[in-house]
């Protein structure tokens, strides 16, 4: 009784829609998750990420549209644990059962042997508490048990819903390292988060959603480059004079400090030339790349469901 061999799986949502009465949680969402990379599934809270993942796993029934794993519905998979490993946001473990028995019960559904159970316990570092009831586990240990369940069938694809939510720094670091190593092994990882900064560290491709709709489907690099205009940051003792000299159509200059100007509409070279011609000494001249965080906020500004988008996405 060994482990399942590798699959290459493509996750696909096509015109996926989920309505709860009047409320539309997921609204005509279509995307494909590329094999072999970490794809971030990003959006503010309530954007429909968890619902989409639950539909991918056949837990929720789409109102319309399809969610498929390698062209088939999840419930048509002969050995789902060997094809897709899933970690859902809410815990999915009976609190009265030990970690080992939990994994043994899941393994039994596929004929996966006891050896593999011990392997994944070891992999997530739970061997020493394997006989303890999962109800007594900390959030971090619970998350490790969830990861162990996801890896049980040695699947090529992993679907992880907010894996770092509520974890302490050590746990977050562990998940990040794990995601990178899983991707390095060539697995497809589809991971959701409402934190752009988290995705910036792990994902290479992003699917951004807001209010159940697709907002962006692009690589992290493309998304950063495409977002907004570049800002040139200039620091000088003669800020008011430079400001007047820079004024022109299509150029906007803002200032948050007495000696600091933020210029959009000009390149740093153009700003430098104007300053040099006027013999203005510059203390600082930087072309700012907008951060991924800003790109994300820009994208989801209109799609945040409940007011105060800044707090929601930046917390």
């Amino acid at each position: 009784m060994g482990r399942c061999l590798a699959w290459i799986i493509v996750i696909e949502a096509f015109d996926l829609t989920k309505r709860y009465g009047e409320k539309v949680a997921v609204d005509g969402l279509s995307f494909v998750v590329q094999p072999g990379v970490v794809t971030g599934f990003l959006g503010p809270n309530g954007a429909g990420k968890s619902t989409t993942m639950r539909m991918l796993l056949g837990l929720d029934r789409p109102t319309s549209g399809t969610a498929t794993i390698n062209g088939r519905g999840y419930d048509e998979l002969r050995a789902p644990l060997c094809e897709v490993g899933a970690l859902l946001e809410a815990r999915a473990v009976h609190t009265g059962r030990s970690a080992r028995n939990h994994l043994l019960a899941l393994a039994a559904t596929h004929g996966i042997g006891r050896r593999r159970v011990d392997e994944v316990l070891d992999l997530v570092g739970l061997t020493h508490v394997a006989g303890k009831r999962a109800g007594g586990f900390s959030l971090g240990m619970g998350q490790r048990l969830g990861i162990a369940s996801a890896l049980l069938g040695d699947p090529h694809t992993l679907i992880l819903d907010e894996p770092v939510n509520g974890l302490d720094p050590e746990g977050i670091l562990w998940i990040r390292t794990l995601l990178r190593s899983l991707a390095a092994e060539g697995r497809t990882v589809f991971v959701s988060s409402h934190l752009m900064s988290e995705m910036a560290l792990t994902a290479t491709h992003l699917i951004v959603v807001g209010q159940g709709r697709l907002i962006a489907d692009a690589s992290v690099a493309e998304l950063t480059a495409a977002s907004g205009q570049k800002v040139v940051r200039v620091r000088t003792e003669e800020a008011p004079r430079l400001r007047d000299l820079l004024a022109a159509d299509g150029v906007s200059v803002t200032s948050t400090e007495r000696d600091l100007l933020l210029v959009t509409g000009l390149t740093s070279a153009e700003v430098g030339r104007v300053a040099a011609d006027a013999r203005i000494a510059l203390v600082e001249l930087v072309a700012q790349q907008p951060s991924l965080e800003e790109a994300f906020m820009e994208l989801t500004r209109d799609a945040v469901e409940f007011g105060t988008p800044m707090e929601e996405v930046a917390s």
Partner: protein
Amino acid sequence: MTAVAEAAPAHLGVTQVRAIDSEWIKFRSLRSTWWSIGVALLISIGLGVLFSYLRGYDIAHHGGFEPDQTELSLRGFYLAQLAVGVLGVLFITGEYSTGMIRATLSAVPKRVPVWVAKIVVFAAVIFLITLIAAFIAFLSGQAVLSGYHVHGAFLSAKGGIAFTTDPGVGARHSLGVSISYPGAVRAIFGAALYMVGVGLLGLGCGFLVRNAGGAIAALFGLLLVLPLLAQALPASLQEHVSKYLPLLAGTAGMTTQRVPDRLAPWAGLGVFALYVVAALGAGLYVLRRRDA
């Protein structure tokens, strides 16, 4: 996107037998399972002996009427059904309250094998255990009753057997009956089948409402409250309705004497089985239809 590389090895994958194996691991790896079963055993055997002792003592000293000594020794199951019913409810609602159901359905995405596996595991284990309990309850109860002796037994007009302490009436004999008494073995199997039915009724209610409190209320509403409500019916209607209610129908299988307002043992168990099938069927419908 062409994507298929290679299939998972043929020996790995979900089958009905493996789903049953998994449910068996789940069932036995919870402490609450063994607590419930322990309580059910203690109550069914302990109360059977206690009732036999109390009735035996009373009849031996004062004479009296006992419709069914077999049923007397199995009377503890009326209380033990609470433990078994709750166990059936928790077997599924425990998964919903803890979120385990998502892990279960991620591993076995088709709903029917999960439903079948839970029924098979629960029915097999509970049948075996309660059958042994029923044999023990019967044998120990009758052993207690055999310690009491009465004179003269005659068929009572009420359909049971009346005993007297008057030495002038008939021969002296023991109050207990043996396992070869007509209907005794059937009543023992009937008790076990009734317990399985109560547990499966609880399982069905659990699949249906997904919440332990609601499912337990529904189960014992059906079993215990329905007969009380039926008493509000006009007497002429009541005798036709009451015997078909789950508790009276199901426990008819535990009797050896025909009582006029009860169904015959197998007929009663058959009617009870219909309730069980209906609850489980509705549970399956909800399991397949509603989001997990």
